């Protein structure tokens, strides 16, 4: 088996004695789409925070392409090619959509430190930023401040900011949450397009989205890996049905 793009061993995280992520082992195959599913509070977002350096693990280890990245700060992990989106939309309220993407494109160049230059030098990112906006269908609201965008547009920009980093690994935390059917279709098509030569890990509650995109599915409950496998395999697993519908349903 080819070495995993990301792998996790014995990863745990406690919050004041409460174990939100519990000895998780996980291998994310290179260039695959890997879905993380599980009920609310299962620890999916916490796991994302551990993978991206926003939280430090209580125990365990995270590797990116064979390199130990445990305990690195988020900006370093981002610099190594791991981009994430946030479950709760996390934008810059005062900056326009295109300015936010410019900021993302500038991220690892070091040019952000130039306090002696005119902000007009950021114009070099205008054209590539517009191309990213076109990818997610936001070109018509490029000049609108983040706080004035409609909900669906905000979710699209959330995705655009992660895509702008041209990451090797893209971590998406509920990218379709709260979207209408049309926007969901659009997002699925977008992920289909951007997954080429890229590894995608996504938390997703919508099972049809998981079915359309995921090569592999890991089910998390109470911080632990319950089942891992292909979509059909996982869907048919009685333990999964149990976890989702409560004890007793699987037997019916």
């Amino acid at each position, binding site marked *: 088996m080819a070495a995993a793009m990301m792998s996790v061993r014995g990863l745990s995280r406690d919050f004041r004695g409460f174990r939100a992520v519990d000895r998780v082992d996980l291998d994310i195959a290179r260039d695959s789409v890997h879905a993380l599913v599980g009920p609310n509070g299962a620890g999916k977002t916490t796991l994302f925070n551990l993978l991206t350096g926003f939280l430090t693990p209580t125990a365990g280890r995270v590797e990116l392409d064979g390199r130990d990245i445990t305990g690195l700060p988020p900006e370093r992990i*981002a610099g190594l090619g791991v981009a994430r989106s946030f479950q709760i939309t996390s934008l810059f309220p005062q900056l326009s959509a295109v300015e936010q993407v410019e900021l993302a494109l500038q991220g690892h160049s070091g040019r952000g430190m130039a306090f002696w*230059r005119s902000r007009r030098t*950021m114009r070099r990112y205008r054209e590539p930023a517009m191309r990213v906006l076109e990818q997610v269908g936001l070109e018509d609201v490029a000049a609108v401040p983040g706080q004035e965008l409609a909900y669906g547009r905000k979710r699209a920009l959330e995705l655009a900011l992660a895509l702008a980093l041209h990451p090797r690994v893209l971590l998406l935390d509920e990218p379709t949450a709260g979207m209408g059917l049309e926007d969901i279709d659009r997002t699925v098509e977008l992920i289909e397009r951007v997954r080429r030569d890229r590894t995608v890990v996504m938390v997703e509650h919508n099972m049809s989205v998981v079915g359309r995109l995921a090569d592999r599915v890991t089910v998390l409950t109470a911080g632990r890996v319950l089942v891992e496998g292909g979509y059909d395999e996982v869907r048919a697993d009685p333990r999964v049905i149990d976890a989702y519908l409560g004890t007793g349903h699987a037997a019916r």
Partner: protein
Amino acid sequence: MRKSLRFLPLAAGLVVVAVLPRVLYPPVALDIVCWALFAVAVDLLLGYTGLLSFGHAAFWGTSAYTAGLVAEHTGAPFPLAVLAGAAAAAVLAVPVGYLSVRRTGIYFAMVTLAFAQLMYVVANQWRGLTGGENGLQDVPRTLFGTHPFGTDLSDPYYFYYWMLPLALLGFLAAWRIVHSPFGRVLVAIRDNPARARALGYPVHRYKLVAFVLSAALAGLAGGLFAMSHQFVTLDTLHWTTSGQAVVMVVLGGIGTLWGAPVAAAILVRLQDILSLAHFEEVGLLTGGVFVVVVLLFRRGIWGTVAALLRRWRIG
């Protein structure tokens, strides 16, 4: 029309600083310029980085003492003494900033206050250097001698025009920083530090650079203040000095850059009028004005005026 309006505040500001010592008592004009630059330095942190420093007197005061000592002991021309002060402030800001930018909100304010108090105690104890409670007296003020181009440098009126370029350089630097790629990142960090980190920006490093730049500008202002008065007292390191600069920023409008100088002019002039009237409770009155403005005009003087202008232009 729009474009010309953008330069209106700049033109108005330049006219005001050009005539200030003609319409006001020149020492008051000097104080206004120094405090305005100090307040702008604090706004750079509070308004554009989201960090409330309650210890900027450390940089204003350290620079004032450094500039005063350099002028006294080396006889350097005053701009060099002032720049030496600003450099000392920037150097001091590196460890202070390193230890404080990891904190946010009230904790950041407390750490910066603690450092400023430490500097106050050190200056008070180190009498041999600072003169303790007496401060530094009779700081010399020279530039190619005492009468450059036939102007009397000991006259505050002439000194005002000699120090103005240095002060304007400070304002220009603040304006440039705010309108640079760095300024854009600062605002992003202020509004959403987590996302900024996710985009690859080392947030603490950016905050540290902002802190040092702000301290350097506060130092520039403090050095000019020392040269304006030709003496340096412990007051320059007192916590009420930090507080006064914060009050000016809030009063003028946080994150507006223009508001702080306007508030500085109003407060310095007000304090001058009150002290002439032998009104002792100056702090009480400025405190009162502060409370009223914070309650009635949450965006400060500049923010409120700008909003009115915008409405008037649209309407």
